[in-house]
């Protein structure tokens, strides 16, 4: 385990040092990229000055909204769909093809319909996330042992009680995986939409800084987005591993 951590640290450190060397040696010119130590300095300055806190908060609020709605709708839909074999069979090809479809291509359409505001961005995040939640919930429910469902029936539990007390708690690891995927997709959807076309938000600020050759703003913001998404992902992955380990690596 420690060896793995050391390896990872070496890869990251090596990568940053390489970038630094290439920047300082002039292989990567200043207009293309500022050296990593300058990016970190700008980053610290940006955070200390509280610049873009409003934008960051707004983006994160939209990500959270997209995530929460996709998660709730996805788990509920997945649970209901699990009971209807025919409906599931019909929707199955849609689920299998869904992530091949460029959902961002619908963004212009949503702007035309809902106007250029938070709505289309949250909707894109929601659409990207919801199907992953449905599919993961269905997969988790498929693995619930028959004996648990039978004991629910023997005890005369209603479908809702069965879901809340037996099947959903049993697939807690799947539900956590679903949350991890949903958060990543919501993030990609919202930030991506902001980048494509918006009036505010982190993604918008990056594209604005880019258009103005403002590397001192662009790189710290990109760094912030990388850190946020990687931190969220690592945290949930860690939790997932702990949960799986406790259940004996099911």
């Amino acid at each position: 385990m420690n060896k793995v951590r050391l390896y990872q640290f070496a890869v990251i450190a090596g990568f940053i040092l390489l970038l630094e060397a290439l920047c300082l040696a002039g292989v990567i010119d200043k207009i293309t990229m500022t050296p990593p130590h300058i990016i970190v300095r700008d980053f610290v300055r940006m955070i200390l000055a509280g610049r873009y806190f409003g934008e960051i908060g707004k983006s994160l609020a939209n990500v959270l909204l997209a995530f929460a709605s996709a998660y709730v709708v996805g788990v509920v839909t997945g649970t209901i769909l699990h009971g209807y074999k025919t409906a599931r069979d019909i929707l199955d090809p849609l689920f299998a093809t869904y992530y091949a479809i460029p959902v961002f291509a619908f963004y212009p359409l949503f702007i035309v319909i809902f106007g250029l505001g938070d709505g289309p961005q949250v909707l894109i995040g929601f659409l990207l996330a919801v199907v992953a939640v449905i599919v993961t919930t269905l997969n988790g429910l498929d693995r619930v042992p028959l004996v648990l469902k039978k004991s629910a029936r023997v005890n005369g539990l209603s479908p809702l009680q069965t879901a809340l007390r037996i099947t959903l708690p049993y697939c807690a690891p799947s539900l956590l995986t679903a949350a991890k995927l949903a958060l990543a997709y919501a993030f990609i959807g919202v930030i991506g939409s902001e980048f494509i076309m918006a009036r505010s938000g982190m993604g918008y600020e990056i594209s604005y800084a880019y258009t103005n050759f403002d590397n001192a703003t662009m790189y710290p913001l990109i760094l912030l987005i990388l850190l946020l998404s990687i931190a969220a992902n690592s945290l949930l992955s860690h939790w997932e591993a702990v949960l799986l380990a406790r259940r004996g690596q099911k």
Partner: protein
Amino acid sequence: MMQREGSAPFRNTVILIVGLFLFWELAYLVVGEVALRSPLETVRFLGKLMQTDIFWLHLADSLKAFSVALAIAIALGLLIGFGLGLHRLSGDAMEPMLVALYSIPKITLYPIILLTFGLGISAKIAFGAIHGIIPVALFTLSAVRTIKPILIKTGRVLKLSPTVMVRAILFPAAVPEIFTGIRVGFSLTLIGTVLGEMFAAQHGLGYLLMNAISLYNVDLIMAMTFLLVVFAATVNALLLAIDRRLHHG
């Protein structure tokens, strides 16, 4: 997921497609002419568009960028996947890092790509490729790792060189999983290429789409979206059929 024999999957697909078109028509009736076009109007407009030369030029440009990007994504993805899969420590260390990279909104890296490669086809290709490399690498990595140890031991006993080992044992054993990776990589590379075209191109379907947005040309937006979805869904359905056969055949 279970797949029953006979015509049931086909019938389900037909029901699904009809259902989606009904939903579209319904949405059109609710939203109206301001922001949407009916399925019929969209198909008709697309038909008209296909008679113009300019459309085929844009399409050819997109296809060229996309195929190069896909080739790069597959080649690099396989290389990384095999490299990490064959070395236990590297695989253990790099897999979570690749997963984390996979979860970042790559679109925000676009300015860096653009500054590095400049406006033009190479930026599009690079952007498409970075979307596709990670899934191909991750699936290949897990495929190489789950190969039965006895196959690898046999190769060692026969004293095969690393190249022969990959070609004669690892690759054939890992093909079904690798194919799944390529299928996912295909979709993501397509998304990446189109996104790349939306920002920094003078040609291609993504450029047409972005252009349609700024001109508020609803006909064109609908036709482009429809075309992209149909293309992605059709190719994916084909790849999925091959994928399932490889896994069960």
